[in-house]
């Protein structure tokens, strides 16, 4: 799974940092999304999907890489 974030769309609601804190954070100044891990391990995929789903600004997009040995 590849994770992408769009800081221009981000509203700083913090749902991603709350839902998948190992993968997302917020920067100290603006509260904008910070991507900690663009290729999270398998066991975090479920939480990352939830985070993408609940983002109120649709600022997180996921590319599933079904055939990749890494995923």
């Amino acid at each position, binding site marked *: 799974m590849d994770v992408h974030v769009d800081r221009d769309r981000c509203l700083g*609601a913090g749902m991603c940092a709350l839902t998948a804190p190992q993968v997302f954070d917020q920067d100290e100044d603006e509260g904008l999304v910070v991507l900690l891990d663009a290729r999270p391990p398998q066991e975090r995929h479920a939480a990352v999907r939830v985070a993408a789903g609940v983002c109120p600004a649709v600022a997180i997009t996921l590319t599933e890489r079904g055939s990749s040995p890494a995923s």
Partner: protein
Amino acid sequence: MQHEPSTRLETTETTETTEPVTLPTQRAAGCPFDPPAGLTELRRASPLTRMTYPDGHVGWLATGYSTVRSIMGDTRFSSRYELMHYPFPGGPEGPLPPAPVGDMTGMDAPEHTRFRRLLMGKFTVRRMRQLSDRVAEITAEHLDAMERRGPGTDLVKAFAQPIPALMICELLGVPYADRERFQDHTHTLMAMDVTPEDRYAAMVGLQGYMAELVAAKRAAPCDDLLGDLAQDSDLTDEELIGVAGFLLAAGLDTTANMIAHGTFALLGNPAQAEALRTDPDLAPQAVEELMRYLTIAHTSVKSALEDVELEGRLIKAGESVTISMEAANRDPERFPDPDVLDLHRKATGHLGFGHGIHQCLGQQLARVEMTVALPALLRRFPTLRLDVPAEEVPLRTDMNIYGVHRLPVTWDEN
């Protein structure tokens, strides 16, 4: 979701032949936690319904989860008050005046974005969690005071109101001792049936108070949110006064009602209360479920800026859509057994804090306050119970933020 074109047309025709509905606001007696029954019936029939507004406008009412969520996330729908028709009876007739300066709920992008960007770094998950020790301290002080005074109190006054009020005052840098000067005004701003004149007077009153405060923050740098904005932002005095009043009003009534109404719901579900009392790890998800189940910020209105096709219906430019977050959060297609309060449920994705660009800015603060306060209350007073029959608890059916006006409780002394 896939729809056959023929099904869509049929649905449209069938629904168009029925009369537009008016917004159901009547809650069934003895069901203080459920949305008005009429809303549930409408959602069962269709997630999007034609609705007649009290001023005669014919617009729409959205009650289904996915419909409500997609409207809240769609920037083709405006939040500007002057485009909105008011959905509740007894309110102002016709379109409202534009949002006062700084009232972020009544703005669209790019104006909204400018304010939101100034503020969102101050309400991050991490910053709000750093406040949790202070929330715990304030919570303990109020529980101590309740214990000292002995059994029998109004939980709203003794506990639910002061905790968020103290926290938002400390965060903003508003002296808590001044609360008599702003609480009546914020109460009027949250009422559903006030005249435009009363609402305007309350806004002017609140801004008058904030103007003095902002002048002080401009004069002497200080380490709080309004102090920061006064020193470091490009906000004019008028904008800073407006946004300060908005943040204060938004932080006072909302969490207070979640704490009081949440306690009321827990006292009516003793097994759930016991689970929260005994399992400290349950609190975060219990808070999400209470947010879903109670949906105290129950209704919102948007207006279409252009023609939008949704659910096989055409919402025309200029038409208002009343969105019922409380009906959406009880949609069985999204939440199985939606009318059951189940603190073990994964309620993530609920619309209790809204969705889209206006999703609650202070939600992480609210989460910390509820996560700390509710279990602490239950643990300190294991015998906590209502002091009046449940049907005598006065409900806020007249307010934009639902909940209870008072919650008389008592407990056994140790």
